[in-house]
């Protein structure tokens, strides 16, 4: 048997010193600050990043037939699992009784911006050159703490989300435009990008793309602010084409270079940029001295293009809508895109001038989306594991041990605002391996017991009785395990599994012995929920 392991040791031992020095920028915000910042970051732990690429899924088998939408609580649960971090039982039942159209409308409805994580979000950058080394170090520490305040604030939004797609869609766009705070440095800039995702996640893609491209975070992250006529930097130009819009192999190296030239002359101080969204141009001396005003030839068109022109030309390419819709398909439906459906979505996208909402509406009301084949065919991402379970256990924002959850994500592989690189996370089966699967089970079962697996107890104990009372009949053992399965498993359960669940709850007692008011009931319920959360079925949505 293994020696006993103190999990606190584990945490300290395995969160190594940072390996992300290269994500920091040499001269950003100034050479002097950058040097101190790098030194500071060297002592910070590096998160685990799941593999870049992963399993190729089974190819579509044509024999698997399409079903037409049979709207019931199973179909409703499917929609809610794919658009929320995790649904509650009452949500599943009430939407199952409502119509599909009403449910989709509710899910897709606009949401107000939440209160920001702090007043600092608009704080202007300091005069770095006028500061002493100690003052700089102090501010670096403050900024770093704010970055994690922002991450925790965001993760809390997921755990207490209303019945809305906005949180998931915000994460989707973050994954798409994957930006890491380590390179950006300013928490103000990271917040600004998050607010853009929230505001435009269901809006117009052209506007979203502009807001992200010319936002301070992206300008810093992919070196647009260092991209000048005399020293062009291809970084943004390449990723704009490869990862953000058209996809690899649909453009040439020359297109990358020409796009880079068009994006010269934009700049940011970390909070504000020299780009004017209304006039669609940069301004000021930086623009005049560093923008390349020459002719560029990009994707077959020639002109004295700037960044907005490049975005317009990209959106004239049919492939752009297909690339984005394929990504939406893979995030919401299945890892292997169905070309016919993606084409349908892309046509709607283009016909609606790149409005995102109609595409989502079409997808979520299609037969295809509700096909039995796709039930449970996605692997939960790490945030839907931790934040989803918190939402389902209804622990309340004030009780969420957010720093613990961030720590957990160091091992599970998905700290928001810390993607491995600009390609984002690979997702799908890459989330699970011989490290992360056991960690997920450890998290879930420890949570139900109210125990911090890294040592100590939480300040709260999940109210499993209250959870059971949200089910249809908590006093009926068979109904209770069936409802629990409906809540946590996306696939219908077999008789054998139902027996196992009953065993986990009753430990051999007869079904009619179950009494929710029995003093032993909370313990038994915890056993059942722990059992459920450690079953392979729980990893699917």
């Amino acid at each position: 048997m293994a020696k006993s392991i103190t999990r606190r040791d584990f945490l300290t031992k395995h969160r190594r010193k940072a390996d992300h020095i290269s994500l920091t920028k040499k001269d950003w915000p100034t050479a002097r600050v950058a040097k101190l910042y790098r030194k500071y970051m060297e002592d910070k732990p590096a998160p685990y990043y799941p593999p870049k690429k992963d399993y190729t899924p089974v190819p579509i088998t044509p024999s698997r037939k399409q079903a037409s939408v049979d709207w019931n609580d199973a179909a409703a649960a499917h929609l809610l699992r794919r658009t929320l971090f995790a649904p509650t039982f009452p949500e599943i039942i009430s939407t199952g009784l409502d119509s599909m159209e009403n449910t989709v409308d509710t899910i897709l409805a606009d949401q107000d911006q939440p209160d920001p994580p702090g007043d600092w979000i608009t704080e202007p950058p300091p005069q770095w050159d006028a500061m002493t080394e100690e003052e700089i170090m102090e501010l670096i520490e403050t900024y770093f703490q704010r970055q994690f305040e922002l991450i925790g604030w965001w993760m809390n939004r997921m755990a207490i989300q209303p019945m809305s797609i906005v949180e998931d869609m915000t994460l989707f766009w973050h994954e798409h435009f994957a930006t890491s705070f380590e390179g950006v440095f300013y928490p103000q800039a990271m917040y600004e990008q998050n607010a853009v995702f929230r505001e435009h996640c269901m809006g117009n893609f052209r506007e979203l793309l502009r807001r992200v491209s010319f936002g301070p975070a992206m300008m810093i992250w992919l070196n647009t602010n260092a991209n000048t006529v005399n020293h062009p930097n291809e970084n943004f130009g390449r990723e704009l084409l490869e990862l953000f819009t058209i996809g690899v192999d649909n453009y040439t190296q020359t297109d990358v270079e020409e796009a880079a030239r068009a994006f010269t002359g934009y700049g940011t101080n970390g909070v504000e940029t020299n780009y004017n969204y209304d006039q669609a141009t940069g301004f000021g001396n930086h623009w005049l001295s560093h923008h390349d005003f020459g002719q560029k030839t990009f994707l077959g068109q020639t002109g004295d293009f700037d960044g907005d022109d490049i975005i317009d030309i990209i959106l004239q390419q049919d492939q752009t809508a297909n690339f984005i819709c394929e990504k939406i398909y893979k995030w919401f439906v299945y890892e292997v895109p169905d070309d016919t459906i993606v084409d349908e979505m892309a046509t709607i996208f283009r016909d609606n001038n790149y409005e995102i909402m109609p595409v989502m509406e079409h997808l979520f009301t299609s037969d295809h989306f509700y096909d039995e084949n796709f039930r449970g065919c996605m692997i939960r991402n790490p945030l839907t594991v931790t934040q989803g379970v918190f939402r389902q256990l209804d622990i309340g924002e004030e009780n969420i041990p957010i720093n613990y959850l961030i720590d957990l994500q160091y091992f599970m592989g998905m700290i928001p605002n810390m993607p491995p690189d600009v390609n984002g996370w690979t997702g799908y089966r890459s989330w699970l391996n011989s490290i992360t699967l056991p960690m997920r089970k450890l998290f879930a079962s420890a949570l139900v017991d109210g125990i911090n697996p890294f040592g100590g107890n939480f300040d709260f104990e999940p109210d499993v009785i209250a959870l059971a009372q949200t089910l249809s009949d908590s006093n009926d053992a068979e109904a209770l395990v069936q409802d629990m399965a409906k809540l946590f498993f996306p696939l219908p359960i077999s008789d054998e599994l139902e027996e196992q669940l009953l065993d986990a709850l009753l430990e051999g007692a007869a079904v009619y012995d179950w009494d929710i008011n029995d003093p032993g009931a909370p313990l038994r319920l915890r056993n059942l929920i722990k059992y459920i959360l450690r079953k392979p079925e729980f990893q699917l949505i």
Partner: protein
Amino acid sequence: MKRRDFIKSSLALSILGTQIPLMALGKTQQTIRRRTGTWDSDRILVLIKMDGGNDGLNSVIPVYDSLYHQARPTLAFDENEALMVTEDSGFHPQMAPFVPIFQNGEMGIIHGVGYPQSNLSHFRSSDIWVTGSPANEIWSSGWLGRLFNNEYPNFPNGAPEHPIAIQFGSANLLEFQSEQTNFATMLFDPEIMYAIVNENYVPGSNDPPPETYGGDELNFVRELDLTTLEYSEEIYNAGQNGNLTVEYPNNNLGDQLAVTAKLISGGLTTPVYRLHIRGFDNHAGQDNAHPQRLNQMSTAISAFLQDLKNQGLDDRVLTVTTSEFGRRVEENGSSGTDHGTSGPIFTFGSTTIGDVFGSQPSLSNLDNNGNLLAEHDFRQVYSTLIEDWFGLDPSISQFVFQDTFDPIPFVSDPLSVTGSPAVPEAFALFPAFPNPFNPATNIRFELPIAAKTSVRIFDIKGREVRTHQLGKLNVGKHDFVLDGRDLSSGVYHIQVETAGSVQSQRVTLLK
């Protein structure tokens, strides 16, 4: 595998087959140690990926090349700064720990490793390196995935006791992906892994998953769950038995190499480890980041080599670095370098030939993007590992890459004959697979000399039911597929005759 039925698969049978060369032809004694296509060596390969694209020109530096200094006004090193190791090249100053290793003949440098029509995207180029595909094709399985699939076609049935491959952290899983499965086990610490896995294991269900994509994914999670449980025990035991004799540097690669050494020392027979060190994508500020990376890498690897040597394990381990590409010859305006093409690969250990393979790339003969032309194909390196290091038949590397790549002689004690084509020692007939069979089975044999060959089939009473004249066949392995569709069930003798020698075996047709 303790918790799974071990199926007597082709694997078990072919191991027997290799140990019973059925008949030797007159052949002069020659030290041919080639294995017959089956993985039975105890050799270990440690692969280290330098994530992001290492700058080869600033690793093994062409200090006297004026074009190098022109292209790198802020980043270049001259002959006084670089650590001169050959007439024309010096190591980066932060690679100092490698200098004595190179001078001892335990470090190989393979210049200019890349592939034709290089792709400048990290993600595509990484995929090309791990799948072993040509640049213009997208392959969905990895080179090691196909290699292992050839050995363990029914994995996880018939899987070895120990993990087939161990990967640390965020290495690319595609490398170990076959069409059916993934052969890698992810690891960071053996003890923790064991404790967490065992405390949280819930016995699986036997109910069949639904015949849907959701069912496919459930199968995947269940398989992973079980394999993790089984392998965590083996890894834990090896970790308990293993030793370290040196102090490893406190960095990520150092940690990975320390665990690797411990597991090898503890008797884990896993043949392939994939480690990684991040941070080589230095578009800006390379003068700061690159030296740190090289320092971490060289101190960690030199500790590892010393540890293996102290424990007498060095003759079983070959360490090889890879990277998805090199960097642009010309530096950019931010004291960095943009994505490039080829770069050097380093090989380490008493198991490698300490030499320079190829020459410093030409800086005047560049491609249209100002990038280096590749001198070696990375698949040459991988083919060498398959054939010379693991001693597998060249037909296997040919299968893995769907093409033939000339080996590079960097393995110091190859399990095959250096120089090709390799000549088999004896005429050998391998066990038919499958057997029993229906309707067809594959009969493999190996010829030491080119000769006319025939296959004759006899029934149980000795009546000849078929004769196949195969004509003159070349030296090497051949497959003959026996089609039993017009034969009735029963036992048959298969006789393969060549150059006056006959080998035979029984097969059973079950209809």
